[in-house]
């Protein structure tokens, strides 16, 4: 992809995905990779950081005889996500305005 992905955009995407429903690492990776060209090894540091900042929390659940670590958005994470959503909205509008050649 032509545009580099920032750490905060990854944080925002992960929070948005997990906020829909609790989910696990592999599925989050696949879902992000549908939208942006992210290497498969990028997600773990992002999850680790979000856990450390207490935006996410994890719990283990058994699935077909093996363990799956699920992630859930915390109150702090939800607040962070709504901040990211607002920022993204204004960022997108400004960029769109220029990209689509509208007169300001």
């Amino acid at each position, binding site marked *: 992809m032509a545009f*580099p*992905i*920032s*750490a*905060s955009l*990854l944080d925002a995407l992960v929070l948005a995905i997990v906020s829909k429903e609790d989910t*696990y*690492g*592999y*599925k989050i*990776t696949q879902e992000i990779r549908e939208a942006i060209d992210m*290497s*498969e*090894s*990028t997600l*773990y*540091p992002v*999850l*680790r*950081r979000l856990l450390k*900042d207490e935006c996410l929390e994890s719990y283990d659940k058994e699935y077909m005889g*093996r*363990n*799956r*670590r699920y992630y859930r958005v915390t109150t*702090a994470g939800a607040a*962070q996500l709504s*901040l*990211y959503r607002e920022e993204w909205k204004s960022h997108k509008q400004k960029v769109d305005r220029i990209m689509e050649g509208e007169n300001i």
Partner: protein
Amino acid sequence: MTKEQFIEELKGYLSVLPKEELESAVKYYEEYLEESEDADDAIKSLGSAKNVADQILSDMGRVETSSTENIPVVTELKTEENTKKKKEKKGLTGLETVLIIILCVITSPLWITLAVAAFAIAFAIIVTVLTLLLAIALASLVVGVAGILGFVVSFGVLASADFATAFTLMGVSLFMIAIGALLAIPGWAIILKVIPAFFKGLVSLFKKIFRIK
């Protein structure tokens, strides 16, 4: 590369991390490979174990970023929260320090006594060893000097024609010189080498203690 090989390599590259972090990362990638339909494909797309480890380590700020991906660390939104947390933590450690000092003061009758006793024992041992070394050295000196004197005197006796006494004295004197020389080698060698080394050690020990404090 098999799944097991990949995980082993990853463990190797992450061994610098605290146990908790290492286990968490290894567990994540074990699960990740289990979830994928084709473990071989998943390993290929993950890249090398070193690449995976580098991403984790660089995110923790332990090594310079070597990946080509551009991931600036933008955490401005959270900095306020972080500084608050740090302050709370500092307050706690301050309280802990005070508690530790109070605990030390309260228990001082116990540990001061023990410390004095330990110091006294160490001092006694050192003095004993040094005295012993000095005694050996002095004994060698005394025996040697007495031997030399006896040897000189035996010539005087020889002049008075009392051969039996003269040669006995001469023999005993030579014997004493030999004993003195034998004792002198270890005695003086130990004193000349051990005592300076001992004081050097003592000085560096004190230096260390005061630097720490």
